[in-house]
Structure formats: structure tokens, C-alpha cells
């Protein structure tokens, strides 16, 4: 059953909606259940009657809520579906052929295409139609089989980076057979050769429908270099208004991570099929480019790989003699610079400095001797693929290099002295160049008549000489020789790089020769005939989506095919490695024309989108759950069980608990909150449970005593973990010493020192009655020394009789704990504190002593249980009780000292104190 855009899978269930009014009546008749409440004032309620009986009926809005929930359940169970799949007309019976272009152009909407295909296969499976899928890129004889079998292979179906060649289409047609079937053709939107023939073949066998994405195809042509700029041109198949695109230049950053190095926004004009733009990049970045890509287009046509032709070569020029000022034309490097300037980057500098930059070419003009380090570094660089270009000259001729044995960095041995021909003092004519032989890299270069050589260095005849000569004079003497070293080569021009010995540097031939030697990189795309007979090895290839993948398993490709042949399974777009350079073969040729498809009007062409079937049952059931939840809250509220304040508080507590549950810092925060809202005495946790309990009980007892006797009303004491707790909140830390407690970490010591410097006080208690005397060798004393070693503790002295601790609250002269009469140590008084005549005490420290050290085990003397009874015995009989009392008084004085500082040192108190002291 279908109502508008919604269909139902189980429409009969909707009949249950008729039962809703009955449910309304039933619910209306039942009042909410009562709450039982304890209430002493019930006596006063006895005999009170209710005025009316309205609330025994459920209010209408609550009923409505419940009705809606029930209706949502019923409708949800009836299985509503938004946009149910339409039943197609009855024409589609019999086998179904699905033809896929599956080229790079269809990669742009591959996901949608695959989804549509999946739906189509599912439908065919429901109707048990046999299905065959024909990929025109890789045609096979179509095999009709169950749709489910195809469906399982759907995920492996991916577009290729090439388009179907005419021979492939022929193969496809020949495999179609004579049976009739329906054809659905997923087109990529581009017209290819042989398409009409194929369409005719399909139509001869049954109805044909076309599926094609309406999104326009964009393509990026290979980048061209002109005058130092990179020219990029993008193309599209149809004019579809103004469109902005962004071309990104991808490459590796200095650390080798692929990223976008630059981007170039382009805009197609209203009726333009092509747009061009120039990108200017520094040579450094240009050398690292890997490919250009139109942003957001995920197909191989929008990717253009770059090869060596984009790179400007880096050439290092090194001359053997200092340039003389004003003699530029005589400089050995002048003509080289002129020849290389437009096309290459020239590096200057000493050889050793230049080598780490790894230039492509190093030119040594008339450099004879190299130091050992230079020679080995240069050799290593050459072996790794560098090209060393040497020029002869007076120095080379005069030196003994490569005389008897061949030097590693020279292609040939040289004879002494060289020769001069055609000079004023010689008989011969200057020699011209002989035509280049076929195996020379300079083959077919035209030789101008006016190029003559009047002086040169001579090569020593050797067995290998003939192989190494790549250019010679008309009399057969070598002019240019070459030797390969590892992956690199050494080339020697037997003349100078300036015009002293020959007119070669003045001619255009010189530049062409440098080009042929790949010294300058004016490398244009090679012609097919140039590459005949070479084999190129694929390094990386593009798939249909424009992703590069490793191509180590693919066979090599011959050079002429690489340049000229159409792409296909055996010639994939990608990067190819050749004898001395890399070539990129792109999907899009240099000057592409993208022709859109034009289908005959009789064929139905549909896009790739279709309305998605959306079952609504789950949503409706969830809605009913939400409504029932609301009903619970409403019922509770109505019956008075939902006390607003308490419910809010409970909700806040629950929510807060949920939020804080994984938070380990909650306890910390509570501690901090407690410590900052009240006065809290704290003790350091030693890890010894009994000792920690004693310390806690002691501080509890002291706290109770303070509570009853003074206006200081501390709350229960807190144990402090030095590693994790904040210390700043506690005025006083009690630190009992035990020999086996752990030494705090460095961070904890930092905290402790900050605490001591900012006015905190630590009471160290060795608890051993100082049996061995302070600082001596009792275990606790030793441990105290260890613990305090890293603490910022000022000089100490025995607590003097006039210390403010003796009079902050009680007047004390003795500071017993469980043990009595042992000295207590505090911060030493300043040495200049002097007793003033008539004053009972000196004006001592201005602040609070940061530490108090003793061994009287005060905590045990203070300790109280919950009923305020002392826990540990102190002394004997009344004297013991007196000692305990004095211990409490010491504790009170201590806390008062911490909280009031040197208040009692003030001279204002002197008269009162004198009176109390009876003086």
C-alpha cells in the first residue's frame, strides 16, 4: 500500500489504529496510583474531604501523549517506507546486459554508478533475470549468470585509466552472440570511436537505455614550460557556464612528505571549452613536483604527471683560474654562462661547497689538478649519476694529469703539450669538424662551416679510444670524448670553453651540443622516431581514479609505443624510466579535444541518482519510546512524586556523576574545595597505614582541642600525598618520619620548596624521642636527613626561650609530646637580634618558621578516637595527664603561630605578658 511518498509493508496493522479510542476510554477511567507518604501532621488532616474528584481522571494532554505513543508504535510496526522502489513496467523480462565504459571519465561518479548498479542487480535478482556485465575497456564474451554472483564481484569493479580502443569495441561486438537481451549502458559522457557501431549492435538485440552522469568531464593537459613559466591548460567536454577550478601542484616537501606545493585558480569562461594559466615556481620547488591535479576531481584525466622536462638543471661552473677584471670575454666560463643562462640554474662557488647541493652537471673549465678530497667526492657524485663536463685549456695541457695512466675523472689519456694548427707560426689550416657518427649523441646536428679549431689537447691512442670519441675533427683527431662512470659520465671537450682555441663556443652548435648532452634541459617531448629501439620501464602508473601506484610488476614498453600508441592494458599512463631520463605518459594528450556524447533521441538517458528507499519504522518506534519517557515524567509530576527541587538536584547529581565518573581529578577537587573552605590540618602520608592513622587521629585530637578552646575550628584532618596533592591550601603539614617511607620525587620536592617559601610550615617528628640526639644516627634521624636534604631549609637552632612559639596562646617553656623534654629545632634567629633592656624577649624573626623539627611524637599524645578519648597512654597518672595537656598546649601554640605569625612578638603585648609572667 502506498500513501503519497510513503508505502507500508504491513498495511493491515494499521487497522489497530481503530482501537485507539477504546484505549482512550480505558486510560481515562483509571486514575494515577497514589503515593504513600509519612507525615506526622496526618492527625490534622483526618476528616478533610476532597472538594472535587477531577484529578482521578488522567488529564487530556497526558492521554494524548499516550495515544500518540501508541499510534507511533502501531504505524512503526506497519513498516512505513519512504520512497519505496517503484515496480517497473513489465517489459523487463529475459536476460540483461550491463555495458560499462568504465574509463577514467566515469571514475568521477563511480560511487554513484556502483550504487545504481547494485540496486539494478538487486532488482534483477528479485526478478531472477540473468545478468551479464560487459566492460568495454576489457571486453570478454558476456556470460549471463545470476545477479547475486555479479553483486558479490561489484566491489572489485573499478574504472581503468584508459578508454576503449576501436579494436576492443570490435572484440566486444563479436562476443555478443545472437540472443536477444536488454542493454543498459553506463556511459562515461565522452564520445569515443566505434560507439555508433556498438550501439547498433546492442539495438539489434533488444531495447537499450543509457545511464550517464550529468556532471561535466574536466581534464588537465600536461604542463608545458615556456620561458621559465609552467603553462597549465584545463579542458572540459561541454560548455556549462562559468566555472572556477583549482589546479594543485603536488610534490614532496623537503622531508619527503607529499603535499600541495602550489595552487593555481582558473576560471572557464561562459562558452569556453579550455582555460589556460601560468604558474611560476622557484626551481627548487619545480624540481620536487610530482603531478598537477584539478582539485576535487577524482579521476585520472584530471591528473597530469610531470617528468624531467619540467626540471631546470642545476649546473655548477668552476674555472681553473681567477677571473681578471675587465676581461669578461676571455673568461673561460663566459660562453657557458651565456649558453646555459636561459634554461638552467647556475651555481657558483668552490667545488666542495657546491657538491652537497647535488647539481646535475658540474663544469670544470681548464681545471687540471684536484685535491684528494675533491677528487674522491667528485668521483662519488659522478658514480651516483652526475655529469662532469670538462674543458681543456692551457693548464690542462701543461699538467701531467692523465698522462701515463688514465685519471679516473678523465675519459682519455692525453699526450704532452697538445697541438696548434693554423696559427701564425704553423703551417696547417685550422681544422673543421667531421660529421657526427650515428652512435654519437650529436648525431644529425648540422655543422656550421665557420666552426674551426686551432688548438686542442691530443688524446693518447688507446684500445678504448674509439668507443669514447663522440665528436672528432676532419682529420680524425678526437674533439669530444666521453667515459661512463657508474651511473654518471665524464665528457671532455678537447678545446677551451672560450674562443681562444676554437670558434666552437661562438656557434649555435655549441648550445645544441650542450642540449644533447642534457647539460641544459630544453628537453622537448621526444619524437617517436628518437626513441625507437629503447625500452622504458614503468615506475609508477595511474589508475582510473588518478592514484599513483607502484608498477614494478608491469613489463617494459618500447620507446616509440610509449610516445605514440594509444593507452591500453599494456600501456598504462604513468612514469617511465628510460636510459637517461624519465618520461611521463599522461591520460590526456598535449592538445586534447573532449567530445561529449550525443545519443539518438529515441534512447532514454537517465542520470545516476535515484530516490533512496528509507524505512521509517525505526524512527517511529524511537519516537514512541521518547513519548513514553515523557509520559513517565509527566505521570510522576502529576502524582507529586516529582518534587521539583529534589528532582532537579537528583538530576544534577546523576548528570554530574556521569560527567565526572571518568574524571580521576574529582577527589582532588573535593579535597581542594574542603581545604579552601575550612581550616584543615594535614599530615603527609608515609605509606605506613598504622602511622598514618596515628597521625590522623593526632591531628583530629588537636583539631577538637582547638575547636573547644580557641576560635580556630578546623575540620577533619586530611592525609596528603606529596606526589599528587596541591600543598598550598594547608597551613600546617605534620610529617612523621619512618625509616622506610619513600623519598618524594623531584616534582614533589619542587612543590614542597614552594610551599616552604610561601609561608607554609612543616612539623617534622622523628618520634624517637631524639634518643641519639638530633641529626645523629637513629634510623629515623638518618631518614629525616635524607628527606630534608633536597628541601630549602634555613639554618636551625634550638628553640630559644623567647621564641614566639612560647607565647602564641599559652605560655610554655616545654614542648612535650608522648616523650618529653627533648629539644625542638626551629629557624635560627637573625644574628643581630639583641635583647632590649627591660624586654622579656628579643624581637626575633619576622615570619613564621618554615620547619619545626623534634622527636617527641606529638601526634600520639594528641590522638583521640571518635568519642574524644585519648588513644595512647602518656606518662603515668596525673603527671602523664599534665604532659598530655602540655602537648595539646604546644599544638595550639603551633597552630596559632602558623595562623597569626609573629603577632605575639609585637611589643604591644609586652605589658600584658609581663603582668602574666609576674615580673
Amino acid at each position, binding site marked *: 500500500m502506498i500513501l503519497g511518498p510513503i508505502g507500508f509493508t504491513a498495511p493491515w496493522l494499521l487497522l489497530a489504529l481503530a482501537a485507539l479510542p477504546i484505549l482512550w476510554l480505558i486510560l481515562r477511567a483509571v486514575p494515577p496510583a497514589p503515593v504513600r507518604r*509519612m507525615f506526622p501532621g496526618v492527625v490534622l488532616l483526618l476528616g478533610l474531604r*476532597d472538594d472535587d474528584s477531577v484529578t482521578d481522571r488522567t488529564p487530556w494532554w497526558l492521554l494524548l501523549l499516550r495515544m500518540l505513543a501508541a499510534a507511533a508504535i502501531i504505524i512503526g510496526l506497519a513498516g512505513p517506507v519512504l520512497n519505496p522502489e517503484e515496480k517497473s513496467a513489465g517489459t523487463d523480462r529475459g536476460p540483461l546486459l550491463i555495458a560499462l565504459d568504465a574509463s577514467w571519465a566515469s571514475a568521477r561518479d563511480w560511487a554513484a554508478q556502483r550504487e545504481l548498479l547494485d540496486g539494478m542487480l538487486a532488482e534483477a535478482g528479485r526478478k531472477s533475470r540473468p545478468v551479464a556485465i560487459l566492460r568495454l575497456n576489457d571486453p570478454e564474451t558476456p556470460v549471463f549468470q545470476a545477479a547475486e554472483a555479479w553483486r558479490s564481484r561489484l566491489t572489485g569493479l573499478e574504472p581503468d585509466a584508459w578508454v576503449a580502443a576501436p579494436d576492443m569495441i570490435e572484440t566486444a561486438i563479436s562476443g555478443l552472440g545472437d540472443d536477444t537481451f536488454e542493454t543498459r549502458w553506463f556511459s562515461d559522457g565522452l564520445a569515443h570511436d566505434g560507439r555508433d557501431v556498438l550501439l547498433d549492435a546492442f539495438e539489434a538485440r533488444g531495447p537499450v537505455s543509457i545511464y550517464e552522469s550529468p556532471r561535466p568531464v574536466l581534464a588537465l593537459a600536461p604542463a608545458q614550460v615556456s620561458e621559465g613559466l609552467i603553462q597549465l591548460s584545463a579542458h572540459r567536454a561541454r560548455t556549462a557556464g562559468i566555472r572556477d577550478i583549482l589546479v594543485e601542484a603536488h610534490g614532496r616537501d623537503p622531508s619527503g612528505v607529499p603535499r600541495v606545493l602550489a595552487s593555481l585558480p582558473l576560471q572557464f569562461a561562459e562558452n569556453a571549452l579550455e582555460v589556460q594559466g601560468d604558474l611560476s615556481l622557484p626551481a627548487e620547488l619545480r624540481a620536487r613536483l610530482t603531478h598537477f591535479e584539478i582539485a576535487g576531481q577524482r579521476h585520472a584525466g584530471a591528473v597530469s604527471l610531470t617528468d624531467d622536462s619540467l626540471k631546470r638543471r642545476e649546473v655548477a661552473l668552476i674555472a681553473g683560474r681567477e677571473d681578471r677584471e675587465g676581461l669578461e670575454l676571455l673568461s673561460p666560463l663566459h660562453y657557458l654562462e651565456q649558453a646555459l643562462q636561459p634554461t638552467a640554474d647556475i651555481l657558483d662557488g668552490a667545488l666542495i661547497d657546491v657538491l652537497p647541493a647535488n647539481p646535475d652537471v658540474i663544469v670544470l673549465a681548464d681545471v687540471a689538478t684536484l685535491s684528494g678530497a675533491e677528487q674522491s667526492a667528485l668521483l662519488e657524485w659522478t658514480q651516483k649519476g652526475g655529469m662532469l663536463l670538462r674543458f681543456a685549456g692551457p693548464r690542462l695541457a701543461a699538467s701531467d694529469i692523465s698522462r701515463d695512466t688514465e685519471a679516473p675523472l678523465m675519459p682519455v689519456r692525453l699526450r704532452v703539450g697538445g697541438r696548434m694548427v693554423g696559427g701564425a707560426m704553423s703551417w696547417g689550416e685550422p681544422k673543421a669538424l667531421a660529421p657526427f657518427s650515428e652512435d654519437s649523441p650529436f648525431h644529425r646536428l648540422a655543422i656550421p662551416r665557420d666552426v674551426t679549431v686551432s688548438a686542442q689537447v691530443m688524446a693518447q691512442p688507446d684500445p678504448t679510444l674509439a668507443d669514447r670519441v663522440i665528436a672528432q675533427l676532419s682529420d680524425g683527431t678526437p674533439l669530444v670524448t666521453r667515459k661512463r662512470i657508474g651511473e654518471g659520465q665524464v665528457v671532455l671537450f678537447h678545446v677551451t670553453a672560450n674562443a681562444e682555441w676554437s670558434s666552437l663556443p661562438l656557434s649555435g652548435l655549441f648550445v645544441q651540443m650542450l642540449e644533447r648532452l642534457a647539460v641544459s634541459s630544453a628537453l622537448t617531448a621526444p619524437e617517436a622516431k628518437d626513441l625507437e629501439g629503447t625500452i622504458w620501464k614503468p615506475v609508477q602508473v595511474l589508475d582510473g581514479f588518478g592514484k599513483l601506484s607502484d608498477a614494478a610488476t608491469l613489463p617494459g614498453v618500447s620507446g616509440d609505443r610509449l610516445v605514440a600508441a594509444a593507452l591500453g592494458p599494456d600501456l598504462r599512463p604513468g612514469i617511465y624510466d628510460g636510459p637517461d631520463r624519465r618520461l611521463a605518459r599522461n591520460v590526456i594528450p598535449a592538445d586534447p579535444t573532449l567530445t561529449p556524447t550525443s545519443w539518438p533521441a529515441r534512447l532514454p538517458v537517465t542520470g545516476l541518482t535515484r530516490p533512496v528507499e528509507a524505512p521509517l519504522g525505526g524512527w517511529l518506534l524511537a519516537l514512541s519510546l521518547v513519548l513514553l519517557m515523557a509520559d513517565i515524567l509527566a505521570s510522576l509530576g502529576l502524582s507529586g512524586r516529582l518534587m521539583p527541587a529534589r528532582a532537579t538536584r537528583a538530576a544534577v547529581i546523576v548528570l554530574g556523576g556521569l560527567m565526572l565518573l571518568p574524571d580521576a581529578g574529582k577527589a582532588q577537587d573535593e579535597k581542594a574545595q574542603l581545604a579552601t573552605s575550612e581550616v584543615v590540618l594535614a599530615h603527609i602520608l608515609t605509606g605506613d597505614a598504622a602511622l598514618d592513622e596515628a597521625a590522623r587521629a593526632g591531628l583530629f585530637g588537636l583539631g577538637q582541642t582547638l575547636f573547644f578552646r580557641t576560635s580556630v575550628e578546623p575540620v577533619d584532618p586530611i592525609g596528603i600525598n606529596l606526589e599528587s596533592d596541591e600543598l598550598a591550601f594547608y597551613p600546617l603539614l605534620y610529617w612523621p618520619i619512618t625509616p622506610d617511607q619513600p623519598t618524594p620525587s623531584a616534582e614533589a620536592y619542587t612543590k614542597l620548596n614552594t610551599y616552604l617559601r610561601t609561608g607554609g610550615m612543616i612539623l617534622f617528628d622523628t618520634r624517637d624521642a631524639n634518643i641519639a640526639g638530633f641529626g645523629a644516627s637513629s634510623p629515623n634521624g638518618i631518614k629525616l636527613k635524607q628527606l630534608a636534604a633536597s628541601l630549602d631549609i634555613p639554618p636551625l637552632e634550638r628553640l630559644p626561650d623567647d621564641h614566639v612559639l612560647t607565647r602564641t596562646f599559652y605560655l610554655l617553656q616545654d614542648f612535650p609530646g608522648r616523650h618529653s623534654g627533648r629539644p625542638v629545632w626551629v629557624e635560627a634567629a637573625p644574628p643581630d637580634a639583641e635583647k632590649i633592656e627591660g624586654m622579656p624577649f628579643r624581637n626575633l624573626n619576622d615570619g613564621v618558621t618554615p620547619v619545626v623539627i623534634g622527636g617527641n611524637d606529638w601526634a600520639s599524645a594528641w590522638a583521640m578516637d571518635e568519642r574524644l578519648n585519648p588513644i595512647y597512654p602518656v606518662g603515668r597518672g596525673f603527671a602523664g595527664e599534665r604532659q598530655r595537656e602540655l602537648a595539646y598546649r604546644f599544638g595550639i601554640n603551633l597552630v596559632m603561630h602558623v595562623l597569626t605569625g609573629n603577632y605575639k612578638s609585637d611589643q604591644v603585648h609586652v605589658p600584658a605578658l609581663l603582668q602574666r609572667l609576674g615580673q
Partner: protein
Amino acid sequence: MNQPVPLRSRAEAEAARLPSLLARAEHLAGTVLLGEHGRRRSGLGDDFWQYRPVQPGDSRRTIDWRRSARSDMQFVRQREWQIAQSVMLWVDSAASMRFASEPDLPQKSDRARLLALAVSILLVRGGERVGMTGQSLPPGRGEPQLRRLTEALGHDGADDYAAPDTNGLMSHGRALFISDFMGDIDPVRTALTEAADRGIQGIMLQILDPAEEAFPYRGRTIFESVGGTLAHETLKASELRDRYLERLASRKDELSALTLATGWQYHCHHTSQSAQSALMWLYGAFERGRFR
């Protein structure tokens, strides 16, 4: 004897409550001593009350010779406690007192005991004798009496509501009744008139929970007494509020009128208020009663 362990542990648990009640009461009482009424009257620490001429029957030991030597007459140093009165307490221990509407509020009985004990401490320190009605504790003074009072206050009654017990009230003595006075009013009236007949002056302190004062209930509810003997069902609790408050007010008026007629003093205290304010009032009420 059969189960000494539970008995002992129960006894200890029971005993543990007492010192805390005593301590809290002492702390509460301590705040009053520091206050307005602290040293206006002579107490035990300053035991002099007045000199009066020697009368026949006075023991010679009581003669203050230093004072007598300054004149021709002989004087007796009279101490304040010698005219001390007996104050009898009645604290409602019925089930209705064991109610607190919020978990962070004290129960009414807890507040009642705290106030009774605190005022006892003050009275004992002032030299009065304090006891409990119902023949449970005759009046006495001193620390031991305070401990006995603490113990006597710890008993819970089983009934839902209780009426003042006038047994053991001493004629021309003083009395303090603490209850919520939620039960039947007639026994209260009887007890009060009887006490007034015997010349007893006293104080009635009504302790109520804030929920009893505000009646914040809504919806269909069955109200039950704490003991469970009484129940009342309503369909709409919020409708009852006004009439309940009316009845409560009339109950208060009745109590107030009763105390006015008998020369007693009446105060209503809520557990949400601080115990100290009630203690101040009680202390002041005893002071006022004394001057009468």
C-alpha cells in the same frame, strides 16, 4: 546471657550516641555562656550571691567572718544555688517526633533532645536542679545528673503521639515541655491546667518540621503517621493545603491561648532553624520566668 556479643555491641552502639549528644549540647550551651546572658547572674564560678544578716538557725560555719568584722552585725554569705529551683523536663519521645522531611534536616526528636540537654547544662551550670517527669529521673545537679539526663533522653517511645507526663512535677517548680503537640490536645490541656494548679510555671516548646509548616505535597497521596496507625488518603493533596494550614494555625492558637491562661510561655521552633536561636529563647524564657 545467651548472646553476650550482640548485647554488648548494641550497648556500645547505644552508648556511643550519648557522649556525642552531650558534646554537641555542651558546645551549644557554650555559645550561650559567651553571649548576652552570660555573666549577668552569678553562677557557681563566682559563688557569691548576697550577704544577709544572720538569722536564727544559721550554722556558724556559714557566717562570713571577713564581712562581719567590718560591722557589728554578722553576715552570712549566701550562695546562688541555695535558692535553686527544680526544673522538670518532658521531652516527647513518641514516633511522630522521629520525622525529618529532608535527609539533611535533623529529626524533630533529635532537635528536641539536643535543646533539652543544652538547656539542662545551662541550668545545671547556673546551679539549678534538673530532672525529668514521669518518675524517670528526680531532679539533681552536677555532671552525673547530666549524664543521667543524657541517658534518659535516649529512649524512644512506641506510641504515635504522646501527651505530657505530669508525674513527678514538683509544686511551685518549673517545667519544660518539648513536643510537636500534634496529638490530641485534651491531655495537653489537662496536664497544663493540672500543673498550673500546682503552681508550676513552665515553657512549652513546639518543634515542627518545615514540611509540616509548608505542606508542599501534591497529587494523589496516602498520608501515614510515623507509627503507621493513622492514614488519610486524598486525591489532590494540594487542595488540602489551605485547610491543613488553617488547622495547624488553630492548633498553635489553642496552645498559645492555653499557655497564656496558665501563665506559661509558648514558642514554636522549626528544625530548619538553628538550634542556637531556640536555646537563646529558652534561656531567656527561664530568665523571664525567674523574675516574675
